[in-house]
């Protein structure tokens, strides 16, 4: 590749959201026919950059220039970018499961004349596209009858039907099993022969190393470097260093760990996907937590962290779950939420709006929701006591609200998170599983939440903290487990853990483990 023929040049892209800079002078150059990977931590700006490129954020809402095939491009919406041959395939597939393969391939792009669909052309052309993506399926088959891996291929066929020249794939293998991943990666690597350039967003460095020609690394909304993978010194280590090379800020309250006896232990925990039941999502995970210890779980998106927690807590997620759970050395059952709560386990969900709170309910009733029995006699609630307890938590947690009778939906994200934490603390847990406890919270509230977590540990509770932010884990945890593809790939004490060795474990394929 001596002479570069750029299909795309993005220069000086800067994008702000309400004063927060998401992209800061980002540049990206993609050569025609290559597979160009974009790597970066969660929140580094990868998705934002792709949304700028595909017109989701229209021209004028960002600064900088986009040059496509040597000409300036100013997309007003997705349709405009698609007309220029840019197609983006998102992580969540956008197929209608009840329609056929052929119908889905040509959805919004129907082979039709004056609104009347030509079914013969549709079927024939769908067959040609299916052959191109290497799928032996009848175009009349319904989408729900084929697996997720094949559905991903249908998405690519759909993109090809739109005469795509630049295909963007956002974490295409996140939901796939190994076999389907292999097939998809081969297909992507061979796209050049169809005259298609690919931009691949991926967390899995193994995949990147396997098929990418070049890699651009983003960090904190900035371009760090573009690495040519044919370079002799291009390695996964170099990509990792570029991804995490930021300084650790002193954002964490001091904490003197006082670690006691083992309080919570999980052995060989395994769970399969509830719909794609052949896919193992939590793979023989074993871990333990001691009293007074804060244990972190580091993993990239789709690694199975939340699935591990939710399958443990009342089997709220997954199917075919197996494994053993011990509390204080005794084997316990956590098969229902009630049992888990009764054994002193609390799970603070990652998605507080969806799973954590009744947003149209009052703060006080949300706080009492888990431990309502504490406030009731013969099934009748003592609302005054409920109110007073909520008031106590409002003060101790510093929930900023004029009254605990306010609706939770009116609070800011940080204050909502404090309500969720309060709700679980009322139940008096010994083991707290906190899933992304600081997601979507501003810096000040984060510090407060960290302080609360430290307090809980100092009270002798066992804390499990799941987070996508490595600095947070490194700053807070006494010990960190790394999880990749559902398997625990390592266990590092605070003194041994660095962003680099964690990232290495988090991007490690689980077959390397065996």
């Amino acid at each position, binding site marked *: 590749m001596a002479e570069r023929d750029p299909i795309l040049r993005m220069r000086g892209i800067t994008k702000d959201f*309400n*004063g*927060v800079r998401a992209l800061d002078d980002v540049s990206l150059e993609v050569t025609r026919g290559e597979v160009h990977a974009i790597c970066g931590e969660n929140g580094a700006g990868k998705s934002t950059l792709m949304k700028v490129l595909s017109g989701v954020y229209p021209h004028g809402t960002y600064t900088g220039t986009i040059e496509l095939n040597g000409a300036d491009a100013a997309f007003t919406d997705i349709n405009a970018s698609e007309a220029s041959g840019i197609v983006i395939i998102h992580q969540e597939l956008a197929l209608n499961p009840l329609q056929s393969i052929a119908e889905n391939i040509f959805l919004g792009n129907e082979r039709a004349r004056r609104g009347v669909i030509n079914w013969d052309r549709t079927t024939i052309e769908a067959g040609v596209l299916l052959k191109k993506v290497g799928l032996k399926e009848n175009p009349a088959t319904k989408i729900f009858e084929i697996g997720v891996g094949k559905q991903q291929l249908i998405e690519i066929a759909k993109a090809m039907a739109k005469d795509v020249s630049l295909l963007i794939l956002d974490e295409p293998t996140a939901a796939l099993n190994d076999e389907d991943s292999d097939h998809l990666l081969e297909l992507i690597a061979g796209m050049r022969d169809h005259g298609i350039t690919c931009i691949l967003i991926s967390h899995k460095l193994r995949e990147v190393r396997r098929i990418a020609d070049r890699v651009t690394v983003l960090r904190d909304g900035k371009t760090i470097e573009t690495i040519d993978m044919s370079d002799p010194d291009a390695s996964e280590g170099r990509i990792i260093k570029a991804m995490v090379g930021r300084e650790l800020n002193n954002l964490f309250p001091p904490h003197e760990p006082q670690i006691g006896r083992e309080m919570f232990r999980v052995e060989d925990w395994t769970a399969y996907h509830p719909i794609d039941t052949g896919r193992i999502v939590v793979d023989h995970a074993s871990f333990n937590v001691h009293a007074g210890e804060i244990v972190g779980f580091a993993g990239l998106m789709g690694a199975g962290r939340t699935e591990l927690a939710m399958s443990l*807590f*009342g089997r*709220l997620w997954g199917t075919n779950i197996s494994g053993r759970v011990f509390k204080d050395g005794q084997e316990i059952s956590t098969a*229902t*939420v*009630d049992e888990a*709560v009764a054994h002193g386990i609390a*799970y603070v*969900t990652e998605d507080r709006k*969806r*799973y*954590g*709170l*009744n*947003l*149209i*309910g009052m703060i006080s*009733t949300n706080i009492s*929701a*888990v431990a*309502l*029995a504490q406030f*009731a006699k013969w*099934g*009748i*609630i003592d*609302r*005054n006591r409920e*109110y*007073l307890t909520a008031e106590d938590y409002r003060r101790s947690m510093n929930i*900023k*609200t*004029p*009254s605990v009778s*306010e*609706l939770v*939906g*009116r609070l*800011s994200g*940080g204050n909502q998170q404090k309500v969720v934490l309060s*709700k679980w603390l009322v139940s008096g847990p010994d083991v707290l599983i906190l899933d992304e406890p600081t997601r979507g919270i*501003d*810096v*000040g*509230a984060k510090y407060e939440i960290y302080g609360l977590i430290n307090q809980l540990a100092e009270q002798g509770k066992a804390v499990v903290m799941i987070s996508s932010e490595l600095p947070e884990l490194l700053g807070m945890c006494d010990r960190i487990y790394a999880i990749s593809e559902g398997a625990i790939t390592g266990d590092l004490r605070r003194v041994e853990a660095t962003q680099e060795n964690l990232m290495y474990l988090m991007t490690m394929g689980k077959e390397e483990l065996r």
Partner: protein
Amino acid sequence: MSAETQTPTEPAAVAPRRLAIDLRQYGILAALVAIIVLFEVLTGGRLLMPGNVNNLIQQNSYVLILAIGMVMVIIAGHIDLSVGSVVAMVGAVAALAMSEWHLPWWLAVLVALFAGALVGAWQGFWVAYVQIPAFIVTLAGMLLFRGLTLVFLHGGTIGGLPNEFVAIGAGWLPNWLGTVGRTDVLTMVLGLAACVLLVVFQVSARNARKKLALPVEGLIQLWGKAIVASAAILAVCWQLANYSGTPIILIILAALILSYNFILNRSVFGRHVYAIGGNFFAAVMSGVKTKRVNFALFVNIGMLAALAGVVSTSRAGSAVASAGQNYELDAIAAVFIGGAAVQGGVGTVTGAMIGGLVMGVLNMGLSILSVDAAWQMAIKGLVLLLAVAFDLVNKRRGGR
């Protein structure tokens, strides 16, 4: 950084919201008052004549009973389309029990309530445990139970029901305390007792809160509300006392309203109903036994529908296959006019009762004005639409 800029504005942003909630609750009440005043003027004072006040209560009692069950089902995010058919079927069962099986009237009522509970258990099973949407289950129930009614009645009617049974829906308490002029004393004594109890409960609840240093409403507000409510209670009682006295159904209705208000506001079960409707996933993750709660809700509305069936059969004096037609729609309309949210999580018994009265007053006023039945239906439809539209627009303006 954004915390600094947001925090000071938070209380200010909250204040108009609370005002909006208050306006919404009082809005329904204000609408009821406005409609009453409007028809009082349009009918030249005939709307609130003693006989009409009495009829308003007796005619609307079954819809109000149904609305109590319906509001709970709707708060939990479901719907029940079958109640009209259940009213008819249970009426038929009660009539059969008395005329064919020769059971005493009170046993017939118990049999009817049991039949309602069975119907509820049947529908609750499909909704809660098989997880078929309530819309489908109760649509099927609507057909099923209407069909069974026809089977039970062999297409005919069963009349000649005992007087005690007929009194449930169409009778009055005897005037044990005699009359002063034409005015029944018992009715006025009951009315006064209700006012005293209202004040005692309000004041003692306030004192309990005060003792715990909880925020309490102002004394002026408290007494203002108490005086307005007492005046309304006494005015209604006065009109009733000058007609035939206290309708028996009013006593039943008052007991139901008070108990269900208590259940929804104060019991763990009631809290779980709101939790399921507010955020189903959050309820599951908080350990709420959602299946059990949903099942209980349908058993409950089944029994309330049975009670409504008893009342409507007793008022009609006979069981007919066409009984209870469109009752489900009246009950659902009452609940939504009363401020319940279509997506669940919001609603009150009081609101549903006011909503039911809005529809009732509308019915009666239009009838007195001899408005054509076809137009009455059309007007009721528009009122329902406007009430819910007003509610949604209000919510959107208040931010979600």
